[in-house]
């Protein structure tokens, strides 16, 4: 494959598989400058009015959330719809939902990296960012869902005059550590991967302020061979470190339910089921975000149609895994011969919460099936709507698991029906506000695409074109060393 052939064909659709050559990951351009200019352009061009509008809206919603939380703390969690038997409602549902969203990032960055999936380069920064923001949103809920927020710190093993320690047998405590670790590592991973690009922004800075801020953030990056060497090492190690986390976090989250004795919760299938679901929802969210962004910032040539198609395929796969999990649950409920278990699932599908159950099945199992067709996989509108539906479905999955199981457990006299209050709903909506606030700040002020990495997978890098200076020379060597592109 030669650069010239690529140049001549001004194409945006790189989804046609031509056995003679590998489809390009960056379209119509071979020179690194293009990538740098495009990505940095996003940050450097003057802020468009539409951004301000979106940001204002997001900020407003965030305000709503904090208002709701203040009301909650001043009043008592009775303002929520929770009761006995349904002691966990929106708060925990949202927590699991957001943590799930937060899975795609690390998966793309770490696992796809270790698997040498070069196409990840143009979306990983983006996904990692999303991960962080999702985890931030998730982190809020466990904190505020307890009855006495002001002593929530008792969940941490802090030495105290009471000589009391947390109960290490409790899955909730495992959560504290699992999510904590995940958040830390993701943040490190995200930030460290950004350093070379931050340095680029620093070097291109036109105003003193930008120069200073990006300067501080890039920690004196000089992009010397030594720097690149250390960087690569650290990146590889972090990737290796993050990979098990992708699996562990949601497994631990699923233990909150699996370890209990409530029929519908007490299931060994939960860990894989939750992880698959998390990746499913994670990718759906990436698609939801990436489609408008790439259109808005004209990144079609870097985040190409092929990338989106790949993600659709992953959604199809994970969607079917989730579907398998659903059916397995039913099978086991029947096969185990456990009367309580079988009733729980009968009740899920046909009881008072059937509506939630069928929303979940439709969105998570039926909708992804359209991705069997290539026309759908490459149709942005369809893909975008589908991804949103999948997010809805995944939220309802958590709702079904948490609420419908609790609402009818062992003693029929204490069965109940949970109804969320307006506070529940607004808090949840508000968490989206927070998410988008952070996201908008991200696309405005940080390199949303890993420039260095994208360059690393461009033909130019693979053939080491002369005249680009030692900086990119580094890139060439680096990629050569990594042996990513043969």
């Amino acid at each position, binding site marked *: 494959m030669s650069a010239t052939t690529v140049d001549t064909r001004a194409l945006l659709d790189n989804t046609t598989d031509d056995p003679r050559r590998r489809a390009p990951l960056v379209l119509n351009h071979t020179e690194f400058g293009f990538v740098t200019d495009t990505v940095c352009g996003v940050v450097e061009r003057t802020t468009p009015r539409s951004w301000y509008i979106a940001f204002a809206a997001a900020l407003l919603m965030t305000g709503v959330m904090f208002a709701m939380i203040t009301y909650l703390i001043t009043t008592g969690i009775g303002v929520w719809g929770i009761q*006995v038997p349904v*002691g966990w409602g929106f708060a925990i549902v949202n927590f699991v939902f957001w943590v799930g969203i937060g899975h795609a990032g690390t998966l793309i960055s770490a696992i796809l990296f270790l698997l040498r999936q070069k196409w990840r380069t143009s979306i990983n920064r983006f996904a990692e960012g999303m991960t962080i923001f999702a985890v931030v949103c998730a982190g809020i809920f466990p904190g505020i869902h307890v009855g006495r927020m002001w002593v929530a710190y008792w969940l941490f093993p802090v030495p105290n005059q009471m000589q*009391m320690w947390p*109960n290490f047998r409790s899955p*909730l405590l495992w959560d504290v550590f699992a999510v904590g670790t995940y958040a830390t590592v993701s943040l490190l991973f995200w930030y460290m991967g950004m350093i070379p690009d931050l340095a680029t922004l620093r070097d291109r800075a036109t105003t003193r302020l930008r120069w200073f801020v990006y300067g501080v953030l890039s920690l004196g990056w000089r992009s010397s061979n030594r720097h690149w060497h250390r960087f690569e090492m650290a990146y590889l190690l972090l990737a290796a470190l993050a990979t098990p986390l992708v699996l562990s976090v949601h497994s631990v989250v699923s233990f909150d339910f699996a370890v209990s004795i409530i029929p519908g919760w007490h299931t060994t299938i939960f860990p894989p089921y939750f992880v698959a679901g998390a990746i499913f929802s994670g990718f759906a969210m990436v698609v939801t975000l990436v489609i408008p962004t790439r259109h808005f910032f004209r990144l079609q040539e870097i985040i190409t149609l092929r990338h989106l198609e790949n993600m659709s395929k992953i959604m199809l796969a994970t969607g079917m895994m989730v579907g398998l999990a659903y059916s397995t649950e039913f099978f086991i409920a029947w096969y185990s011969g456990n009367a309580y278990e079988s009733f729980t699932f009968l009740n899920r599908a046909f009881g008072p919460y059937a509506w939630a159950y069928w929303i979940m099945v439709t969105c998570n199992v039926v909708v992804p099936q359209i991705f069997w067709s290539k026309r759908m996989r490459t149709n942005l509108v369809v893909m975008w709507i589908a991804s949103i539906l999948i997010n809805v479905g995944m939220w309802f999955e958590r709702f079904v698991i948490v609420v419908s199981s609790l609402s009818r457990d062992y003693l029929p006299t204490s069965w109940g029906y949970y109804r969320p209050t307006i506070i529940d709903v607004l808090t949840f909506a508000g968490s989206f506000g927070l998410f988008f606030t952070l996201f908008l700040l991200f696309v405005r002020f940080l390199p949303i695409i890993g420039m260095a990495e994208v360059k690393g997978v461009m033909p130019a890098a693979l053939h080491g074109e002369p005249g680009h200076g030692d900086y990119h020379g580094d890139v060439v060597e680096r990629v050569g060393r990594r042996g990513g592109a043969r």
Partner: protein
Amino acid sequence: MPSLINETGPMYWRSLDELARTPEFAEAVRREFPNDEWDRLPAATRRQFLQVMGASLAFAGLTACRWPKEEIVPFAHRPEDRVPGVPQHFATSIELGGVALGALVTSYDGRPIKAEGNPEHPDSLGALSAVAQASVLGLYDPDRSRQVILRAGGQEYAKSWDEFEADLAGQVTGSGDGLAVLSEASSSPSLGRLRDRLLAARPAASWYEYEAVSFDGERDGLRTAFGRPLHVLPHLDRAHVVACFDADPLFEHPAAVRLSRGFAASRDPHRPDGMSRLYVVEAGYSLTGGRADHRLAVPASQVVGLLAALAAAVMERLGMPVPAGLGDAGGGPSPESFLAKLADDLLAHRGAGAVLVGPRQDPLAHALAAVLNAVLDNAGSVVSYHELADPDRPSHLAAIGELSARIAAGSVKTLVILGGNPAYDAPADLRFAELLGRVPNAVHLGLYDDETSRACRWHLPQAHPLESWGDGRAWDGTLTLQQPLIEPLYGGRSPIELAAALLDPVPVRGWEIVRDTVRAVAPAADFELHWRRCLHDGLVAGTAAPAAAPQLDLEAVSQLALAQEPPPAPSANALELVLAPDSKVYDGRFANNGWLQELPDAVTKITWGNALLLSPTTARELGVAQEDVVAVSAGGASVEVPVDVLPGLARFTALLSLGYGRTAAGGVGNDIGTDAYPLRTTAAPWVIPRATVRPLGRRQKLACTQDHHAIDTIGFGERNRRVANLVREASLDAYLEDPEIFRHMDHHPPLEQLWKEGTYEGEQWGMAIDLNACTGCNACVVACHAENNIPLVGREQVIRQREMQWLRIDRYFRTPQGVAPDEVEDAAMVFQPVACVHCENAPCEQVCPVAATQHTADGLNAMVYNRCVGTRYCSNNCPYKVRRFNFFNYRKRMADIAKMQLNPEVTVRSRGVMEKCTYCVQRIEKVRIAAGNDRRPIRDGEISPACAQTCPTRAITFGNLNDPSSEVSRLRGDHRSYATLEELNIRPRTRYLARLSNPAAAAHVDAGGGDHGKETA
């Protein structure tokens, strides 16, 4: 006894000599009518205030500044026997419907905080009904009237007692012409004495007695049968066959506590002469009906017909001439199968049976019962008759009718109403409230400035029974004393004191009056000693009325029967409406009592209000559904009430309880539920024919603690499947055939222990609950409420499924398989008290992240409020769902005066923490420390939790499982012993003893679903 108002403060759960004195509190006590709406959520502003407190508390830990300075305020002169912080107990009595129930009241540093039964008292035997226990809360009700009020010219004036007495002296003079006294039902000899003196001193004066719920039907019936009214006292413990015709001896009867104990004894499968059998004929489920072996649901109006038919059948079989009018007196449906079976049984157990009739039934029914008991030789053996203190008084309905007539005629100048609330509960056709307005000088002595007071010229604050001297008679006539435990909080006076004031202007103290009465009734050589003895026992020994051997007058009965024309059978457009005193607020007098309002009705499980009960089929035929609001009309009057669909009611029969819809009850009771009194007339006080029900197209939520939402078909089926295993029941025959029958009912693989077995040394507490004894009377629930400072949450919170009772009584209707929810006509009703069962492998303990709930060395599942952060994980993981959560600070709006009731031995929980049954750990610790101090082991039965202590049937047994000789160990070894949800291997420490039914040979009750009560009119 010093008045405590000025010495009590916010640190109410500490002992008196440590109380912080706050002027605000003293202020609050004097405050007029503090607003206290239980049934609404706190206003947001109040919540903010609360949060500030919460936050400051939180930071107190961080900034480590000392908590507020506390003062210690010792007595200046400490009474001889008083040890600060050590409770004392006083015997007194609580009178309801003219029957005194002996009580033992716990006083903590001078504050009465809990009422328990008086073991010495014949009607109590150590237990107390739910209503009687709740009277303690009534004492501290912030809405109680606090001063004498004069109403004149549309104005209200706060007056003093002196001003009232001066005014009265002017009004009541000479022969007492135009003076009438209306008293509520009372058996007080003192009041009787004063009445006689008054009528002697003022011959022109007249004295009436009225109470909505009375037993005059029985009086008149027996007057017919025996020539004079008598009290019927069944001795159920001796009975073999008990037939209840619209009677509820286990709950509604004034001596229900005593009768329940007897009934439980007769249901013991190991009773040497076998277990008794219970037949019940009634319109809708009563608690007695719930325990029936054979139950027949018929309209209340048809009961007398069945009774007549039964009497005829029995007498025929005995070869006696059947008096005219008996054979065909019924006319209503008479299902041979049931009556034949009953007749056989009664004849087979002559002299060992009892035929009982309830207060709703008219005299004929009672007379017929008397006939049956007489011809079956039950009289004298199982049923005894006792002379009355006041045989000649007219019936309550007659009395109020006569009084109304005289008022209408304008011949009543001064009307003194001693207690009661006639303006609210007098028969509607008398329009008593209006009549009161015509009395120039109406005086009402009442605990509250209620409907009656507002229609009177004078309102006088009444002293609460726990504040005043008094006396009364038990059902068997035993003279029972009532002594005050605290100075009247609001300077109220008792009825006897006011009655005395009518005689001589100088106020006489109740103490003297009662002393004189005792001196008169039971003279003793050394009176002081005798008096002290009586006060200590709470009763005057040997004053029970002797059993009478009355002569039966068949002729009179037959005359009465002939005079009766057969009542119409109800139909879809002419329903039969049956009124009943409410199981909680009674005739409405307890409407302002939060404990009772929030107490789930035993059968319907409805709190905070009443509902029109209809059977599923009747509801379907009328086209109304659960929670539809309907207009019930009868005799021109009409009320609007939501519908509750319930099995076990007779067809075309509707049940409605009295006592709700109060307008001047107080902050708690106002506008709760529907007032049914407008439908109640002198002609038809209880059973109202030709009523119509019209849907209004509105719906109203019922605050129900069970079946929180209309049950769908799947849930309905599953519930029926599970009941059989949760509440295990078998017929006596089946049980005797195979004692292991209940063990066969658990279906689960062998249970493997995941953890290593714990070591069990020292005391290991456990509980056994005998479902065969439990009648579902709710006494334990209120006892728990009082003992453990359980907050009230109000109607809205109950609707949101946030009720707080630690102990709940699950009620199941066991319906035959394959019947759709709306086709259930009749179903067996079973009860199961459920509180924390203190699992050995407690699921809650595993999951609490901060170890706030832990297992103790003596096997309790301890809940540590001050460690709890409120994740609610424990509640989610509790298979019994017995944990309760403080979603708000439910204490925030508690009136300071009400705080005086709180038990100092139990932490008061604030917002955001979980709570649950502790096996009354405070009682355990108290005994443990005392025993340890004396270096002695804890005796079996020395510790009894509040629920076990007050259970009328002794269904709950608590004790040490490590002691093989303890009662609880013995019971858990019993063949009937089983654990619910045993298959989860959580090893509950509370186990149940299965229920036994004893149907006549024909019908059999299999473990699956009760056959009893199958037959239906």
